[in-house]
C-alpha cells in the first residue's frame, strides 16, 4: 500500500518538474495591450491638458453681445416660469407660488382657492428667509390671489399678471388648465 502511494507521489513530482511550455506569441500580445493602454491614457491626458490650460480668447463685440443675449434669454426664461404649473394626467394641477420677502416673519398665500383665509396656506422660508414658497393643488380655473406679509401687508405676485383691484390692495391672477 505504501509502495503504491510513493509511486503516485513520484509521478506527480515528475509532472510538476516538467518545464511549462508558453505560447511564443504571448509576450507580443501582452506588450501590445500595454502599449494600447498607454495610448488611451495619453489621449485623456492631452484632452485634460487642453481643457484645463488657461488661454486668451479673442471674441468680437458682436459675438459677445450674442452670448450676452443668450444668457439674458435663459435668465428671463427661468424667471418667467413662476407660478410653475405641473399638470398631472387627471385631477388638480400642482402650482408652486414663490415670492421674495426678505426680513418677513411670516408670509401666507391667500386667494380664491382658500376662501381668502390668511391662516390657511402659510408659506415656507428658504435661502436665509428671503425666499418664500408653497405648493398647492388647484383644479382648472382662474384664481385671484395675493401674498400676505406679516399678517398685514398685501403683496402682488411680481411673476404673474396683476388684476384690477376693488379694495385698494394688490392682487394677481393665475389660470390653471381649461
Amino acid at each position, binding site marked *: 500500500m505504501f509502495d503504491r502511494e510513493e509511486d503516485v507521489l513520484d509521478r506527480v513530482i515528475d509532472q510538476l518538474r516538467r518545464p511549462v511550455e508558453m505560447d511564443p506569441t504571448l509576450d507580443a500580445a501582452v506588450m501590445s495591450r500595454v502599449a494600447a493602454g498607454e495610448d488611451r491614457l495619453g489621449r485623456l491626458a492631452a484632452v485634460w491638458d487642453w481643457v484645463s490650460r488657461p488661454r486668451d480668447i479673442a471674441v468680437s463685440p458682436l459675438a459677445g453681445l450674442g452670448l450676452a443675449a443668450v444668457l439674458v434669454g435663459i435668465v428671463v*426664461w427661468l424667471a418667467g416660469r413662476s407660478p410653475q404649473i405641473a399638470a398631472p394626467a387627471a385631477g388638480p394641477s400642482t402650482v408652486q407660488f414663490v415670492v421674495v420677502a426678505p426680513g418677513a416673519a411670516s408670509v401666507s398665500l391667500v386667494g380664491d382657492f382658500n376662501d381668502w383665509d390668511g391662516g390657511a396656506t402659510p408659506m415656507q422660508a428658504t435661502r436665509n428667509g428671503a425666499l418664500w414658497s408653497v405648493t398647492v393643488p388647484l383644479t382648472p380655473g382662474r384664481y385671484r390671489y395675493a401674498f400676505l406679509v406679516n399678517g398685514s401687508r398685501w403683496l402682488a405676485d411680481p411673476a404673474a399678471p396683476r388684476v384690477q383691484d376693488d379694495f385698494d390692495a394688490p392682487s394677481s391672477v393665475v389660470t390653471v*388648465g381649461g
Partner: protein
Amino acid sequence: MHRSRWFASFPLALGLLALRPSTGAAQDPRLERRLDSATLQSVSAVIDSARLQGLPIESLVQRALEGAAKHAASPQIVAAVRRLAAELGTARLALGSASSPMELDAAASALRAGVSPADLTRLRHRRTQSLTVALATLADLVASGVPPDSASAAVIALAASAGDDQIAEFRRAVERDIALGAPPAVAAAVRVDAALRQTSGATPRRP
C-alpha cells in the same frame, strides 16, 4: 282662552317673519362668519339675484371674502360684488347661455380689463373649444399693457386654429418680450404672427 291668545299671536309671528331679512336661499356660512350683518344682507341679496339669473355665484362669494380679508369697508365690498355680478351678466349675454362658469369668470375679467362685449362674441363664434384659456389670456395681455383692441385682435386670430397650450405659450412669449422692453402692442403683433405661422399647418385641436 289659550286658543284665542294663540290666534292673536299668529299675525304677530307672520309679521316678524316678513320683517326677517329676505335672502332667499340659505346664506353661505363662509360669508356669515366673515361679514357683519349689514354687509352680509346686501351681499346675499346680490348673490341671490345672480343665482336666480343662473349666473355662477362662487366668484361672487370669493370677491366678498377678498374684501373681508382686506378689511374693506362695507359699501366697498357690496359695490365690488354688485359690479362683478353685472360683469358676469354681460359676459353671459356676449358668450351665450351655454357658457361654463369658468368661461364666464374669465370673460368677466376680460371685460373688467377693457375688452368689449362685441369682441367676446366674436371670440365665441371663432372658437368651438372652451374659451377659458383664450379669455384669460385676453385679460392677462391687457393687464400686461397690450391695448384691448390689439389683444382682442391677436387672440381672435389665434382662436380658430391654436390649442390652449399654444395660446398660453403665446401669452408667455408676449410677456417675456414686454419684460425685455418691447412695446406691448408690438410684442403682441409680432408674437401672434409667429404663432399663426406655426399653427397654419396644424389641425385644430379638439377638447
